[in-house]
C-alpha cells in the first residue's frame, strides 16, 4: 500500500477589506430614557447598512449603525441589540416601532412600515431644521432626490435604483480597486494637480473598466479617485436637476461623509449643502422614529412585538 503524502493546508492570508466603513453606536450621555414619557424606535434596513434610532420624547437619544447582513429580520434585530447593549433599553420599554428602508416589511417587531423617502425627509428636517427643502439621499444601492416642505413632508421625489452609479456601492467598488480605505477616498481626491475629466457616470462596471484603463495610462490613484468622485457628482446632480434644487440643500446617506463627492456636487449646483453634527447615515431611521413619536401622540403607545 502506497503511502499518501499529506500536504499541509496552505494558510490563507486575510484579504484587507478596503470598502468596509466604520460602524457606530452612540447614546446621548445627557439624557436618561427612563424619565421619557414616549420612547419610539426607527429601524432602517437598507441594502448595505441597517440603523436603529431611539427617540425619547421627540428628541434623538441613541443610534446604532451597522452593515446589513444576508437576512433583513436579523439585521433589524442586531441593529436594535446594539442600542440595547449600549443603553439597557429593551423592546418592552419602547412605545412604538417604525420600520423603513428596502427591508421595512421584514422588521419583526415593527408596528408600521413607512417608505424611506418619507422618513429621509422627516429625518433631514430634524437634522437640518425647517429650512431644509431639497434632500439628496445617496444610499447603498440607490439614490433619491426629494423635495419637502417646512414640516418635512415630501412634496416631490424621484428615486433611481436601477443601477449602482451614484451610490455607495459604486464607491465601495472603487475603494477595493484602488486598495484605499473608503474613508480616505474623499480627502485624497483633492490631492491632484489638475481636476481630471469624469469617468463613466452611467454604469459602475464601465467606470471600473475606465478607472483601470486610466491607471494603466499613468494616472495616479488620487487622480483616478478624483475622476470617479466627479462622475458620481455629475450623476446625482442630473437626478437632482430633474426635480429642481431649492435653497436648503441637505445630503443624507453614507456618501454625505465623502467630501470628494459632496464638494463636487456643491460646485456643480452652485449651492452649499447644509451641515449637521448628526451622522448623515441615520436620517432614514431617525425619520422613522419621529413618525413613531407623532403616532404615539395621536393614538397612544402600542405594545411592542417581541423579536
Amino acid at each position: 500500500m502506497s503511502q499518501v503524502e499529506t500536504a499541509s493546508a496552505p494558510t490563507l492570508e486575510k484579504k484587507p477589506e478596503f470598502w468596509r466603513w466604520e460602524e457606530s453606536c452612540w447614546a446621548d450621555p445627557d439624557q436618561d430614557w427612563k424619565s421619557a414619557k414616549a420612547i419610539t424606535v426607527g429601524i432602517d434596513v437598507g441594502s448595505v447598512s441597517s440603523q436603529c434610532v431611539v427617540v425619547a420624547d421627540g428628541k434623538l437619544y441613541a443610534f446604532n449603525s451597522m452593515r446589513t447582513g444576508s437576512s433583513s429580520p436579523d439585521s433589524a434585530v442586531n441593529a436594535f441589540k446594539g442600542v440595547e447593549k449600549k443603553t439597557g433599553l429593551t423592546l418592552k420599554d419602547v412605545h412604538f416601532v417604525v420600520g423603513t428602508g428596502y427591508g421595512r416589511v421584514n422588521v419583526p417587531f415593527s408596528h408600521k412600515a413607512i417608505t424611506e423617502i418619507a422618513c429621509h425627509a422627516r429625518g433631514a428636517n430634524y437634522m437640518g431644521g425647517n429650512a431644509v427643502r431639497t434632500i439628496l439621499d445617496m444610499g447603498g444601492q440607490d439614490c433619491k432626490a426629494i423635495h419637502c416642505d417646512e414640516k418635512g413632508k415630501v412634496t416631490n421625489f424621484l428615486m433611481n435604483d436601477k443601477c449602482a452609479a451614484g451610490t455607495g456601492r459604486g464607491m465601495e467598488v472603487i475603494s477595493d480597486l484602488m486598495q484605499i480605505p473608503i474613508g480616505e477616498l474623499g480627502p485624497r481626491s483633492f490631492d491632484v494637480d489638475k481636476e481630471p475629466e469624469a469617468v463613466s457616470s452611467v454604469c459602475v462596471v464601465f467606470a471600473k473598466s475606465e478607472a483601470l484603463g486610466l491607471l494603466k495610462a499613468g494616472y495616479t490613484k488620487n487622480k483616478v479617485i478624483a475622476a470617479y468622485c466627479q462622475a458620481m457628482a455629475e450623476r446625482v446632480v442630473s437626478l437632482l436637476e430633474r426635480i429642481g434644487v431649492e435653497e436648503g440643500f441637505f445630503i443624507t446617506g453614507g456618501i454625505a461623509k465623502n467630501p470628494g463627492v459632496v464638494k463636487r456636487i456643491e460646485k456643480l449646483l452652485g449651492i452649499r449643502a447644509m451641515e449637521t453634527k448628526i451622522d448623515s447615515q441615520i436620517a432614514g431611521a431617525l425619520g422613522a422614529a419621529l413618525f413613531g413619536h407623532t403616532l404615539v401622540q395621536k393614538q397612544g403607545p402600542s405594545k411592542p412585538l417581541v423579536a
Partner: protein
Amino acid sequence: MIANYGYKDGSGEYYISINTDKCINCEVNRACLTACPKVMFEPMVDDYEDEVVCIKSAFRRTLAYDCADCKPSAGYSSLPCTTACTPGAIKHSW
C-alpha cells in the same frame, strides 16, 4: 406631492410623474387603472394616509419597454393613461 416612478440609464430618462394632490380626490373614478393596456397603475395608501395611485413596482425599472406600445411609434397619437386622467395628474418624461 409629485411622485416620479422610473429611472435614468445610459439610454435616457424614463419617468412617469403622478401629482398625488390631483389624484387624492380623483374626479374620473381612477380611470387610469383600466386605461393602461398593461395595467401598470394600482391604488395605494401613501405614507401620509392618502389614497392615490402608483406604478406597480414590477414595472418601475422597465418603463421604456413597457410604455413603448403606447407611444407614437406604435400608432397612438396620445397616451391612454394621460388621456384618461383628465385632471392632468399623470405625465411622461419622454
